[in-house]
């Protein structure tokens, strides 16, 4: 008989997880319920988080963003502060499934499901998020780059659940983007997804840049491609707006190339490895340009001969 638990606190929840091995945490249910109905998942029971006060809260402050287990994609994607400070995450959440899925599905659920195609995972990788795992033994912090082990597998131990994801504040003038290449505009899984977060100083020099990819490796992949961008002059302040400098096109192309080299795409029913490999640089370049655009708001000044 399938068990259903509805604990009133996180403490109680991890108690159930420890005491009833084979139980899984049920958040939005957008992955678990269809899997159960299709007979693809055998579990002892579900531990619903719906009875825990404050478990869906989203906190935004000077020390960053805290996403809790029942924070939905819609909640994240509709938060103005998230759009302003962590745009890669906002765009990634906005690209998940459909309105209905975003209203139910959670960011924590998305990363715990650990699909290589997880839209929010690559965005969180670019933002240096920290996953807070809770068990009867206490709490530990896991950098998200160390969280994924393989398709459907994470470093979470039996009896552990994710109690929060903490996203640090932006490190400068921030821009970010998530570009998802998929046949449909909604209800689709990324053939290739590219997340970019970059930060500029007030003179337009890149302080940091991170590029992560979805659907091109066994896990959501943080690449080293940002190295091609860090330290580079990407724009110049110009009368309250920004002037694009020459060479950005080549810098971004180089980053796209590095990202492509980091990937190990496979062929499946959604796309061939060949197509995925060809789409990585396209998605990365587009994400970089969008991210730069968001870091340098307003109409760009583009001098003749400068390629945008």
């Amino acid at each position, binding site marked *: 008989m399938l068990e259903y638990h509805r604990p009133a606190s996180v403490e109680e929840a991890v108690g159930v997880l420890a005491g009833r091995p084979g139980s899984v945490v049920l958040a939005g249910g957008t992955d678990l319920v269809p899997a159960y109905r299709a007979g693809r998942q055998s579990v002892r029971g579900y531990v619903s988080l719906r009875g825990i006060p404050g478990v869906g809260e989203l906190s935004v402050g000077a020390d960053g963003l805290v996403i809790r287990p029942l924070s939905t994609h819609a909640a994240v994607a509709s938060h103005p502060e998230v759009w302003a400070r962590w745009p890669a995450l906002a765009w990634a959440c906005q690209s998940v499934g459909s309105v209905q899925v975003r209203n139910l599905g959670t960011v924590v659920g998305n990363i715990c499901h650990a699909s290589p195609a997880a839209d929010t995972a690559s965005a969180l990788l670019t933002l240096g998020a920290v996953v807070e795992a809770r068990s009867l033994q206490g709490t530990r912090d896991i950098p998200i780059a160390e969280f994924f082990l393989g398709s459907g597998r994470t470093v979470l131990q039996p009896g552990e659940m994710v109690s929060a994801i903490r996203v640090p504040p932006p490190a400068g003038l921030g821009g970010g983007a998530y570009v998802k290449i998929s*046949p*449909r*505009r*909604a*209800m*689709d899984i990324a053939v290739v997804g590219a997340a970019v977060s970059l930060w500029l100083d007030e003179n337009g020099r890149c302080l940091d840049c991170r590029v992560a990819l979805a659907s091109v490796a066994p896990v959501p992949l943080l690449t080293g491609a940002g190295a091609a961008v860090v330290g580079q002059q990407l724009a110049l302040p110009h009368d309250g707006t920004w002037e694009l400098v020459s060479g950005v096109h080549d810098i971004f192309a180089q980053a796209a190339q590095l990202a492509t080299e980091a990937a190990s795409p496979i062929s499946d029913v959604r796309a061939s490895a060949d*197509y995925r490999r060809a789409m990585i640089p396209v998605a990365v370049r587009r994400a970089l340009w969008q991210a730069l655009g968001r870091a340098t708001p307003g109409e760009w000044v583009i001098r003749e001969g400068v390629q945008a």
Partner: protein
Amino acid sequence: MASTVERFGPQWVRQDLIDKVQGKALFTWDVKLPGMLHARVLRAMVPHALIKRIDVSKAAKAPGVEAVVTADDLPDPVLGVGVLASHKVRYAGDAVAAVAARTAEQAAAALALIEVEYEPLPAVFDPEEAMAPGAPLVGDTAAAAAQPEGETAGLSPNVAVFAGIEDGDIESAFAEADVIVEETYRTQMVHQAYIEPRIAVAQWHPGRGYEIWTSTQSVHAVRADVAIVLKEPQTRVIVHGPFPGGAFGGKTGSELEPIVCLLARKSGRPVRLANTREEEFLVGNPRHPSITYIRSALKKDGTILGRHVRMIMDTGAYPGGSAIGVAALLSTGPYRIGAVKVEGYSVLTNKSSCGSFRGPGGPQADFAVESHMDSCARALGMDPVAFRLKNAWVDGDRSPTGQVMQSVSVKECLEAAAKAIGWPSDPNAAAAGSTGTRRRGVGVAVGWWFTGTGASTVTVKLNDDGTVAVQTTGMELGSGSVYASLPAIVAKELNLHPSQVVVAHGDTSTGPYDVGSWGSRITYNLGGAARAAAVDLAGMLKDEAAKRLGVSPDGLAFGDQSVYVQADPQKRLGFRELARVMYRYSGPPVGRGSFVYPRPGYDRTRVRGDASGAFNDPAYFAQAVEVEVDMETGQVTLLRAVAAQDVGRAINPQGIEGQIEGGMVQAIGQALYEEMVWQGGKLVNPNFADYKLPTATDVPAVESIILEKPSTQGPYGVKGVGEPPTCPTLAAIANAVYQATGVRIYETPLTPERVFMAIRRQNSS
């Protein structure tokens, strides 16, 4: 955007709409009977194998199980081929056994206890390999293994159907050509993807036989099939057709019904059997994949001297449907062509059995010939629209089979669609001038399609309060052809408001015969029968009124639910009074009607095998689209979609627009997104995550243009409506992609990957 000149009748809220909107309408899914069991089917997981042994003894003893059936429970396993496999399975999906239990979960658990021992056979998945002599034989009877003769001599017996057309001297046409264009087109297997899977509930009554509720397009087709397979007289098979939750050609015959009947009889209880979505993908009679080799002999001035088509359809495990016969006639297009040769083959393979999907054969043939027409125009340096207009049929032209075409409107439809999309004055220049990452183009395609035939009968009964009931077994699939068109037609003949006419939907034991809701035939045939029945009743009412009023029936008319003397409208008899006296004294006020008409003639010497000889009262249509192609990803975005369709006479314009929009969107799905993907005899994407239907965000609003050029025989000039919108879309989109990119895509769907790879190949060559 209905351009109807004159409304046929008033708009009103048809009787099934509010129930449907409020979720109260009864679908088969909702049927629940007391004590009902739930069944599941065991399906083969191997593509081709002999069944050496089936042992159901453990399953029969499993918790909750009340009955288990296999082919051994059929009165005659030969009659049950395709229902329950007796000695051989032909594809991974063939039904082998079924279990009825108290819950669906218990039935599913019991399936795992059935032991089936298979002896694998070599399998064949590619239709061209399957055609070759020596290919593994998919069929399992001696007749199916007989060496073919005649047109298919030398080929494998896997060729289930040949359909050929020959008109004129094709050799000389190619010898005299200035330009020859030769191409190959391919289409994929796509599924109807209705919301409600196949589902049937059956009950066995020892005194009166089987009673069935099923999601179907034809209660009479199910009755006929079940009666044959279970060897019962038709009087002992009663079939009810609640509203089907979508069908699109997928529910034309029986599939689950004989199985659920066997289970009901064996268990002595009502049994419900519903497919899972995965099963539905396997057994849904999807659209035949096709390969079309097409070449044309052209004169520099744009004359088409000859066209040769060789078309191969992959029909899967069983020879379902007549798609190749229809496609053969469609495959050269509605054009004047000097000489024509068509060779069509429908070939068995070890995959799902293909059948009828909205316009069977239409999208395949139209994709090939209408893409090819653009290629021919480009090869000649002509405008594709002008090239089509130069060669399109007009009244009096003859089809390749010698049918004299009447009420032809190819040109009117094409001109309307091209105008609406803003067809460029120089499309070749537009194609050459397109640069940048996102490129736009427009494309057109035309088509023609028959109005389906077959028997329809209707009874129109005057109730004793003066209202009117239309009795029918015609299945309402959602278009309104039954619940909107029939009341509108009967109301027209009796000068009533359509809301005063109620459709009384019957089962096979109580309702008048109708062959089925398919082939774009309902408003034409059932509407014709309804008109005949209404005219029959009108005659009775006038005769009775004439007798009682002492006047001649000629001067009588209908109005306000009464019959009156036109010259003296005060002299009248109400329907209520007429009903009262007629039921009591002079015979029932019940009109009966069938729709009977001669079939069009053609030249039989030009037709070989199963090719369609003539198209009954064809409809003509054209579609135009504007696309944007992302050159870096291959993504095709539809910006605009226009459909111009000649419907003959628009009885129900709102319903027609629904059919045009829905049909075109379904074809957009085939053009850009959908494909049933097979790997080694296994369907790898039987779910809506990886079988990609277009979402609301992927399709633009369809602009429908309704044209009316009356048919020769349909009631009020009606032509078939439902299937045409699926036919030209594939080519219209591919043609627009060509104009945008200069790259011709020869295979559907035009997925981003396929378009990207084609662009990359062209750039590197």
